[in-house]
């Protein structure tokens, strides 16, 4: 059958109408989400879209990403080809061939080469998915169907082009190497056969196209061809290293216990996911056998929205629980509590899906609405509220570490920096040693600093990540009022959790503090020559550097600790395989520090094993939680000869005369 506008036109118009209606029905559910989200503006947004959707910077981080880039660009070419296909299918005269050679020839050349490359890429993708899938469950019918249909599309394109070349109807044939080659193969056939070949592939092309627009794009993860691009454009204005504040008024609902309690962007994220599995492959909870799978969380949100959305839109009640144990569309509580808030998933996602804020919203629902959480957190919550520290130690003991030193109280005018010691630095015996070293370094460099002493309060980091926003909010307000009252503007922290909370979270409370982590400050002091070292440290042996999530991934401080170690030891530190942006959490973030870890293996052991495979003598950390997790892990591994040192301890070593 010839391409026949009388048949094709109604078919394609119906398909397009169905496509538009389906997208409207599905994507329209996004409007159920809560308002509020700020992206980077149109200019910046377009830049992000160019870099991450069109150049695919994050996709390319993985070796196989290049294959995806080819398929993506083929898709762009495909849009052109298909536009022509649809136009000429309806109006046979509307062909690209009417364009002058200057435009026409390059388009045909590109179509030919890209289609050939894509066919190769599709075959590679099929082989890869079968033999080395990105994750075991990735071998889904959906994935194969999408790949195969793209392949069919390409084959149809070549079929049509080859037949046209064989019939002598293609004036750019000389610039279409692959189609010409195939056309030559056909040229031995009779005109009638060539005609039949043309007709067959033309209708195959039409069928593949209709399948794409009626099924694949609206109803499978292939929707990402549009939504992922939009998601890159909509990249959040600021790094998602904090959580949205809540307003505590009577009658409000807190957290997300139902899908429409998530933000509209959270819902849109769920449509942008293409289940590539990058997030799940870097998740420390997933890697150690916990039930958390960030990809599945996003998928469950989408399934939940699709199941409940139409009901909710009509004002009905949800039937599938967002937080629940069984089945698709529900996220189980253990998964929600397994998150260490390390942010690896968000760093890995090529299209800026934000997993963490959604999990925190669900935690908020559990804590604030249902008061339902792992029982060990009850002590933490009570201790925080009553004594403003996680251990429930008397606040009077905050200054015990100062007993051997002369430490001034912070006083506006008299002292420049507030050294915000933090709970670990004040109460944890191992971390107190670090505190003493930080203080010694500050004095040696002639920094003017003071402490709040017994008046210092916990920053509330764990509470916020655990979803106890109500108590966090109170603590943050108290702290901000205290900082204002004392005239604090510049703060030194030795804990990445205090660092991020004071720097990023407290900004929501209207205070812009200049917060510096001790590793950065030490680096600046060394660079400026204000901190004099007595010698190069060699007795710590081979030093490997661990990036804390809240220093590195959440706040982009990667260089300072490396440069400090290099200055102090004369050699760059050894690196983990998973370093910098890809650093693997110690297991203590997101409030996990205060929780039992009963399912699967231990996260800290995973990281310690990785460290030991590099045979270090010393593991250098810059966070009290990491310190605890590594020291515990080394004890478990009976690797007592390997030491854990805070970056300040490494520096302090170099300030002492050789033993």
């Amino acid at each position: 059958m010839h391409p026949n506008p009388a048949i094709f036109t109604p078919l394609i118009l119906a398909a397009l109408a169905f496509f538009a209606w389906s997208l409207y029905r599905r994507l329209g559910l996004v409007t159920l989400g809560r308002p509020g989200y700020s992206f980077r503006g149109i200019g910046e947004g377009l830049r992000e879209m160019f870099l991450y959707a069109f150049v695919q910077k994050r996709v390319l981080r993985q070796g196989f990403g290049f294959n995806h880039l080819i398929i993506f660009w083929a898709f762009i070419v495909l849009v052109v080809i298909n536009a022509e296909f649809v136009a000429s299918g309806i109006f046979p005269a509307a062909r690209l061939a009417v364009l002058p050679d200057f435009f026409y020839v390059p388009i045909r050349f590109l179509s030919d080469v890209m289609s050939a490359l894509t066919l190769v890429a599709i075959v590679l993708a099929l082989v890869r998915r079968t033999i080395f899938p990105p994750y075991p469950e990735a071998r889904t019918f959906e994935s194969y169907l999408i790949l195969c249909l793209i392949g069919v599309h390409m084959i149809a394109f070549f079929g049509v082009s080859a037949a046209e070349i064989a019939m002598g109807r293609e004036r750019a044939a000389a610039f279409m190497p692959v189609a010409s080659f195939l056309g030559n193969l056909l040229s031995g056939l009779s005109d009638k056969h060539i005609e039949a070949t043309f007709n067959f592939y033309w209708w195959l092309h039409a069928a593949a196209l209709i399948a794409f627009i009626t099924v694949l794009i609206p109803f499978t993860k292939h929707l990402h061809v549009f939504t992922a691009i939009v998601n890159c454009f909509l990249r959040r204005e600021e790094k998602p290293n904090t959580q949205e504040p809540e307003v505590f008024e009577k009658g409000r609902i807190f957290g997300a216990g139902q899908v429409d309690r998530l933000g509209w962007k959270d819902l849109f994220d769920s449509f942008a996911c293409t289940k590539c599995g990058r997030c799940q492959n870097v998740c420390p909870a997933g890697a150690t056998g916990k039930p958390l799978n960030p990809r599945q969380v996003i998928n469950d949100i989408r399934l939940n929205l699709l199941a409940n959305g139409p009901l909710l839109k009509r004002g009905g009640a949800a039937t599938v629980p967002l937080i629940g144990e069984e089945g698709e569309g529900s996220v189980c509580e253990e998964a929600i509590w397994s998150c260490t808030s390390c942010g690896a998933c968000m760093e890995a996602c090529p299209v800026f899906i934000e997993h963490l804020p959604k999990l925190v919203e669900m935690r908020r629902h559990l804590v604030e609405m249902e008061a339902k959480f792992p029982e060990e957190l009850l002590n933490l919550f009570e201790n925080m509220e009553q004594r403003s520290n996680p251990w429930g130690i008397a606040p009077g003991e905050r200054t015990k570490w100062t007993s051997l030193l002369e430490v001034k109280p912070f006083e506006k005018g008299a002292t420049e920096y507030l050294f915000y010691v933090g709970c670990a630095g004040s109460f944890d015996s191992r971390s107190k040693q670090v505190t003493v070293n930080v203080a010694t370094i500050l004095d040696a460099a002639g920094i003017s600093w003071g402490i709040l002493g017994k008046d210092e309060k916990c920053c509330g980091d764990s509470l916020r990540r655990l979803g106890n926003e109500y108590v966090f909010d109170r603590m943050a307000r108290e702290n901000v009022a205290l900082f204002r009252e004392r005239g604090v503007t510049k703060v030194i922290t030795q804990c990445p959790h205090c660092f991020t909370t004071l720097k990023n979270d407290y900004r929501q409370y209207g205070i812009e503090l200049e917060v510096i982590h001790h590793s950065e400050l030490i680096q600046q002091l060394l660079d400026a020559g204000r901190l004099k070292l007595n010698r190069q440290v060699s007795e710590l042996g081979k030093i490997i550097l661990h990036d804390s999530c809240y220093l590195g991934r959440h706040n982009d401080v990667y260089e300072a600790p490396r440069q400090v170690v290099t200055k102090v030891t004369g050699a760059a530190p050894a690196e983990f395989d998973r370093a910098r942006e890809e650093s693997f959490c110690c297991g203590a973030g997101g409030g996990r520090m205060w929780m039992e870890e009963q399912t699967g293996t231990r996260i800290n052991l995973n990281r310690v094993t990785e460290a030991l495979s590099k045979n270090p003598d010393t593991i250098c950390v810059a966070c009290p939680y990491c310190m605890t997790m590594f020291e515990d892990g080394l004890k478990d591994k009976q690797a007592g000869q390997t030491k854990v040192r805070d970056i300040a301890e490494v520096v302090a070593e170099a300030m002492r005369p050789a033993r």
Partner: protein
Amino acid sequence: MLAIACIKQVPDTTQVKIDPATNTLVREGIPFIVNPYDTHALEESLRIKDRFGFRAVALSMGPPNAEAALRKALSMGADDAILCSDRCFGGADTLSTSNVLASAIKRIAQETGEEVGIVFCGKQTIDGDTAQVGPGIAVRLGFTQLTLVDRIEALDPVNRRIKVRRKLEGRYEVVEAPLPVMITAVRELNRPRYPSVPMRLAAADAQVKVWTNEVLRMDANTVGLKGSPTWVSRIFSPERDKGEIIGDGLVDPTGTARLLIDQLLEKDLLAV
């Protein structure tokens, strides 16, 4: 039927210091908390409410700022909160405290027209540590006293029977008694619930009833300092010699440890 939980706001004793000059508690800047044992008493009254439909009332005697403790009780789910507060109640020992609380309990029964089924108290407070107020209330009300309870085995409000397990030293004792009873709670009795945010917000505006002696109309000689046959003559911390810092553990941990062991052996504090 009523389940009344008696709670007390106490200074967080881990943070309390004694002024050596005046021998009094340094209360400045010390946070107040609900006596930990009382939170278990309160929780159990709420569980009885949840399971048997009792009306849960939280009751306290103390200065006006003790309202915070009752507000916490409301945020956890108490139906009502009553604070007995009057200058003349001040300086009370355990006898006059139990007098006031017993009288308040009677009044609650009168006002609500409901019968008291169970009075819950903590086994003791962490500031006074006498463990007398609960039994004192029981005696004054003529209730059976079931102290040191770590489990309620059975409650039958219709036949007015209760069976509890008492946690004694090295053994348990299961006893049955007719209602009404006074129960004192040990920590093992339950895990106090965490208040949800909507409950907290509701409790923030809820009414804590304050009963002065004009309401309770007690004989002034049976309450407060006047009604207290015991009084505190002196509070003091046992004297302790100042310690001594030996060596420098940061510079030379091994040497310092050796020094420490040597000194402990010298003083005959370590057995070899």
